[in-house]
């Protein structure tokens, strides 16, 4: 099982580094630009906070973008949550289906390893990559904050990133179940699901009738503005997320262990 895990870690290492360079690099750049933009943003912060639905959607009604915490929540929060979930979706949607898509399943499954062990090894590899991505990104953001020498709500910041990790794992589990059901790589579908949940979260924050149902999107419990301003967790949404994650992993095992090798 460890051989398959090691193989998958090596396979996706380039993808990890590319996504880290893009997302982490953009995040670091934004942090380092904060001091030069701070003066101009002080004037804009008030107008951004009073833009009605737009301010609600992006959390600018809760935090001032003239502060590092507010800037982090609106700018880096958006980049990291979208970038992180897209990375999680891409590796998870291809993790199982690439074997049939690339006609390598006959080689893999003729080795003395059960389908259950393959699922476990590949899921562990997905989780490791997602974890590494977050560790690297958070590390580089903290480096940027240290260079900047500004104060930030550290406890809330770490809570935000733990919940981001949880959200990425939930979306990865959904995409992993899709991967188990399909014979072709469906990373387009994975990315579509991420964007759909993101858009739904924005809409649910703007339209009062949908506010009770905003927990349906995993973005609801990992929203930077909510967490950095209050330091609290939307427990219902988080529990739903844990349930979805567990359910999707169960579906993956049920579907993939009963699957025949494609003709």
């Amino acid at each position: 099982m460890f051989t398959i895990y090691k193989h998958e870690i090596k396979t996706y290492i380039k993808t990890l580094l590319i996504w880290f360079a893009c997302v982490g690099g953009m995040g670091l750049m934004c942090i380092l630009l904060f001091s030069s933009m701070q003066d101009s943003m002080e004037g804009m912060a008030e107008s951004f906070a009073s833009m009605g639905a737009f301010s609600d959607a992006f959390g600018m009604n809760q935090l001032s973008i003239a502060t590092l915490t507010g800037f982090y929540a609106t700018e880096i929060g958006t980049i990291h949550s979208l970038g992180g979930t897209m990375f999680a979706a891409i590796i998870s949607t291809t993790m199982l289906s690439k074997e049939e898509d690339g006609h390598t399943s006959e080689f893999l499954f003729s080795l003395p390893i059960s389908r259950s062990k393959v699922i476990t090894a590949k899921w562990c590899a997905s989780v490791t990559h997602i974890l590494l991505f977050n560790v690297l990104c958070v590390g580089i953001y903290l480096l940027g904050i240290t260079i900047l020498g500004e104060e930030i709500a550290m406890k809330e910041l770490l809570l935000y990133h733990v919940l981001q990790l949880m959200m990425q794992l939930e979306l990865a589990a959904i995409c992993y179940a899709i991967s188990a059901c399909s014979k072709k790589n469906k990373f387009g579908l994975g990315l579509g699901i991420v964007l759909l949940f993101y858009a739904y979260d924005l809409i649910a924050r703007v339209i009062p009738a949908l506010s009770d149902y905003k927990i349906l999107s995993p973005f609801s419990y990992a929203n930077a503005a909510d967490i950095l301003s209050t330091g609290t967790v939307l427990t219902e949404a988080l529990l739903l997320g844990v349930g979805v994650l567990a359910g999707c992993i169960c579906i993956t095992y049920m579907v993939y262990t009963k699957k025949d090798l494609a003709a």
Partner: protein
Amino acid sequence: MNKVIEINHLTKHYGKHRGVLDISFHVNEGEIFGFLGPNGAGKSTTIRSMLGLIRFETGSIKILGKDIQKDKETILNEIGYMPSEAMFYPAMKVKDIIRMAADVRKKDCQQEAEKLCERLQVDVNKKISDLSLGNRKKVSIICAMQHKPKLFVFDEPTSGLDPLMQTEFFKLIREYVAGGATCMLSTHVLSEVKQHCKNVAIMKEGRLQCVDTVDNITKTSTKRIRMLRDGKQEDFIFKGDLNDLSKELVGHDIADILIEEPPLEEIFMHFYQE
């Protein structure tokens, strides 16, 4: 003699489509067993069922005395399988693929792998994506042989290999079989069966047509008839009682007749087209 492969009443459908129907045969220890049939006859379905790669509806398969549905991992550890489509991860190097196949088996196969690479002239530092079909086939052979399994299952192994490599491949098989291994060879190349196999099974449209020794199959009642009847030259394969043929010839002007054992190719064609 120990039965290495025992298939009893195997039936498999793909939805509404027929895979194989009520297949039963066995392969004895230490033999090279030929498995023949036209495309779509059910050879690959039988092999994939044997390896536990697909589930089947009815019947049972025992490999090395163990049930494939219960002891799949243990059985696969003792099998060297070479699929007809030799596909690997394109970004990996040959040496990494060979090591991966050995590592999954938790065996140190380095010495055997080096020997096989040398005999099959494989450059282990090349990337899979840079290899031709023939070279991918060689990598597949190494992955199937390096752990010295008790049973080899080869699905069309020689397609894409040059004649020199084909000769080397069969030399290797004979060496492993001499060392106690068993080999099941699914192929379209009849000369390979004639040259290397003792027993053969012939499949057609999902059913087993016959299982017998190559010698017995060529000595069946199937004959090749060449004759000049009523001034016309005729050349055909006859299967049945020769007395029936002689009765049919009564009243005809037979200027010349030759009854002979048909070549293996014609017997198989006869089975295929029957």
